């Protein structure tokens, strides 16, 4: 995200003020199409097949399903095309969007309103008012393989399962070759040829620098992947070290200065949801559909529970690294699902015995593909973005160049 241009807290006369007058310590806004990593940027990162592309595609659907006060536009042609195609694939074709093949620079504009408190006399009730917000989201959606810590060491010739041609769907033990269109055919294992010889190389360096320069980070963790591939830590480890190397010092503490939204994905998966259900972490968030969700207040504890349940993976190591590198005050956990739960159109309610929205099809040639069964109803996809917007906008100006008004509510 670049330049979350909220209006000045007290002096902004109207909705257009924030748009027209950037904060004082923020450099003048460059043209909209450029990617400008900075304190107010948000970087997204995760292991291959952790669902980054699907997460981005689900974001717009989440916007349309959520608070009507928010709207997402592409800031350039590539972003608009991505937004259109990935939304179409996910919601209409009911397949997972194609994986990202390169470091696509996606820039979106997030339009909405936030309530801010107005300063009043102490004896007067707190006044709130809606202020328009136009946020620039410069998302870099890097292919997961660029975060592979083995990439540099092994020259990119390695390793099945980390191919950038994968997408955000579940993986399977079977290793049929991937399909080329119409959604992911899982278990493609060949690394992308263009990066085979350079081991991530320039793309990777650029991405790490981009992440280090971002003010907010979204880390996607797929706990189901860790049960099978057990390589999430491997992907996480090197990247966090490189970010640490490049990131500026935090003024108030020894942590990295970034705000981190940890998204524990695949909440709709049977194993993940079972843990949430057994541990009592679920609550009904949608009064109409009776969707369950894990509230972000308990998401960190749920994450700890996941680490305990996952006796063979290395998620707990990731958790320790997060605590070591990121301030707890600037870290928040979210339990997300890009595709959400299946809702039987006849009942219109969540069915605890029939909620998986994914169908795996095996084709007559032996290949497999994942399809969505019903409508896409993302869970906690919008919330990390909104949380980051809020946190970045209220951070001290030295850190974020940000906004001093305190948001009292957001979509997150």
């Amino acid at each position, binding site marked *: 995200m670049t330049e979350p241009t909220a209006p000045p807290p007290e002096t902004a006369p109207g909705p257009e003020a924030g748009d027209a007058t950037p904060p004082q310590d923020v450099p003048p806004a460059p043209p909209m199409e450029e990617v400008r990593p900075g304190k107010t940027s948000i970087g997204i990162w995760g292991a291959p097949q952790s669902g980054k592309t699907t997460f981005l595609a689900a974001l717009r659907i989440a916007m349309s399903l959520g608070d009507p006060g928010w709207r997402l536009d592409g800031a350039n042609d590539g972003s608009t095309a991505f937004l259109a195609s990935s939304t179409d694939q996910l919601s209409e074709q009911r397949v997972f969007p194609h994986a990202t093949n390169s470091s696509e620079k996606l820039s979106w504009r997030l339009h909405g309103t936030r309530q801010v408190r107005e300063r009043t006399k102490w004896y007067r009730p707190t006044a709130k008012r809606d202020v328009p917000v136009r946020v620039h989201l410069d998302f870099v959606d890097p292919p997961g393989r660029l975060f592979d810590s083995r990439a540099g060491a092994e020259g990119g010739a390695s390793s099945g399962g980390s191919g950038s041609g994968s997408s955000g769907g*579940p993986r399977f033990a079977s290793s049929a070759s991937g399909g080329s269109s119409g959604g992911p055919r899982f278990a493609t294992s060949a690394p992308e040829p263009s990066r085979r010889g350079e081991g991530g190389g320039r793309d990777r360096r650029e991405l790490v620098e981009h992440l280090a320069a971002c003010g907010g980070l979204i880390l996607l963790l797929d706990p189901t992947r860790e049960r099978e591939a057990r390589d999430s830590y491997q992907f996480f480890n090197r990247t966090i070290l490189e970010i640490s190397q490049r990131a500026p010092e935090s003024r108030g503490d020894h942590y990295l200065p970034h705000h981190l939204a940890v998204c524990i994905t695949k909440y709709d998966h*049977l194993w993940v949801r079972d843990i949430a259900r057994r541990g009592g972490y679920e609550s009904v968030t949608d009064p109409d559909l009776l969707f369950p969700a894990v509230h972000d207040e308990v998401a960190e504890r749920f994450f700890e529970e996941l680490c305990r349940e996952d006796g063979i993976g290395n998620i707990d190591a990731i958790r320790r690294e997060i605590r070591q590198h990121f301030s707890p005050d600037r870290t928040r956990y979210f339990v997300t699902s890009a595709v959400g739960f299946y809702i*039987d159109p006849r009942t219109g309610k969540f069915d605890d015995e*029939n*909620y998986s929205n994914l169908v795996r*099809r*095996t084709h007559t040639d032996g290949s*497999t593909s994942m399809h969505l069964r019903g409508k896409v109803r993302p869970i906690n996809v919008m919330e990390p973005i909104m949380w980051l917007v809020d946190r970045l906008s209220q951070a001290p100006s030295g850190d974020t160049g940000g906004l001093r008004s305190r948001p009292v509510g957001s979509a997150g």
Partner: protein
Amino acid sequence: MDPDAPLPLETEFPPEFEAPLPCPVCGLVPDEFARFACAECAWTPSDDDVHGTKLSEARFRYDLRAAARVGDKARPFVRGGVPDGDQWTSACEEAERERTRLLEESRTAATATPGVGGWTLQFGRPDLGRDPSTWTTQWAFDELVRYDARSPVLIDVGADGVSVMVVRPDAVDGPGDPWSREDHSWERLAASHLASGAGERAFQLAGGLHDIDRARLTEALDSELARIVERLPIGVTTLLADSAPGWTVPGLTIARLELLRPDVRVVRIGRPAVEELADAVARLPLQAPYWLVGAQFDGPTAQPVLVPLFPAGSMTGQEAVVRVARGPGGADNDVVLAVVATSEVLYDPRPVSVLATRLPRGVLSLRAALEGPGRVRWPDLPDVRPESRPLDQLYAHTRACPAPAATVDVMCAIELGGPPTPAAARRDLLAGTLELVSADLGERAGVSVRGYREHSFELGEERDAVVEGVWDADPDRALDAFAALERRAQPYQSDAAPLEDALVEIVGFLERQRDARGWLNEVHHPPYRVLVVLAGRPPHPRGQGQDPLRELAQPCPRKDDWRAAVDALRRFGVRLVAVLDGATDADRDYWTALGAHRRLTLEGLTPRALADAMGLVPPGGASVPFPLMAPVPVEGDPA
């Protein structure tokens, strides 16, 4: 022997004894009363034949006649060089004319014999399809196979030697030849006098005797023939058949045999005597009725029964039609078509014709064609082989085959989708099994086949029906309906298939059936019910998470529960058999439940083994060897 070698001029007699010289043409030694010309070849020495030209020509003509009786194999042995084409053709035509004349002479003589042909109307009739001139010969052979004849003897003197056949008229109904046969080759009868080569020996037998001592040959034949004749029964009908008319040595043998058995009747025939004898047997009317051995389930086991096929007096050419069906085990075992002869008064069935074949499924109308006593042909069956097992053993097998249950409810749930190869194998196995059921149980089995495909998880299609097939049909109809189920490949879920839908349907069917039959009836007369599941993938779970080991398996969109269905099947007393693909883990709970009685692997499984596991065929592969008789055993005799 060199045909051009000079005749031996010297004899073994002492010089003081002036023995007559043999004829330089035919080698015959004239007796003391002989005329100037040779008695056999009419050769007359000529003083003006100083160069021997006439003698050579006489030798050539003499040998050519003998060789022409034999054929091409004797052509090289003609003295004076191999005859050219015209000479040879002319000689062959002359030999054929001579042969025909001799045969005609024989027929004329037989017709003139008093009493010949008198038995024809009583015991048989000539083959009207043959030349009427052969009828007298047929009558002569008919006398040999008279039912009241006592060991008649047929002596056939032919090109190969002397064959002696003692006919057993009481054995004409048997599967074998009703005669015993003893062959004496010329090689054995006159080995020291005849050439060893087959072609030259045939030339000699036919008349090329110019270098053979006739007296010694006759002496040797007399000795051997006496040994043969002395072993023959005395005072029985004896027929002497000359099947090589015109040949010198067989003719000599006939003459010597006539001296040894003056009571013989001599006939000349144009083919081997055994063929005439077989035809004579075939012309006989049946003395006892012929029956087909069938099987019926009577009591706890099957029983062999006799079904009338041809009544007594039936003649060659008559046909009968029987309606049969193969019995239990008949789909993959031979069915024995055993025809026996026995009178209805004195029950003593004797095997006439015991043949093995494979019968197609269903009730068949089989034609049986009578080709004479002991010869029954099945023209509708292309592959018929002799059956070597004795009838007593087959009777015992039949009686050891337990009767199947009176009514059987056979239910089949088969996965039609999934990987194509095992899907095809499942279909083939079930089709073969239904065929077995059709053969073994027939209409006693009510067969329900439920084939299930794939749940569609497209919005709006979740509750579409995925099961198709037939309910409670006779096996043949069920098999046809099953074969009509479309073979199509479609995407599938690798970890679940809508087996639960098929199970729930079957439970509903059983409930309806129970209601129709009545509760009390079911309690007192519980039907035998068996369900076979042929599958590779487990059922969809009832709800998400019902099977923790299949995280991605979608629950059944219709919320059918295989556990509840299996419980209901158990309550109905259904025998549960599961046939699983080789790659399927058979120890999972759904398979242990659905294969409670037997769990089998698809690969290598035969329909009989599956039917055995289902309790539909006799255990241990017992089968009924004889065909089951259809309700209408005999449609009639079109002849």
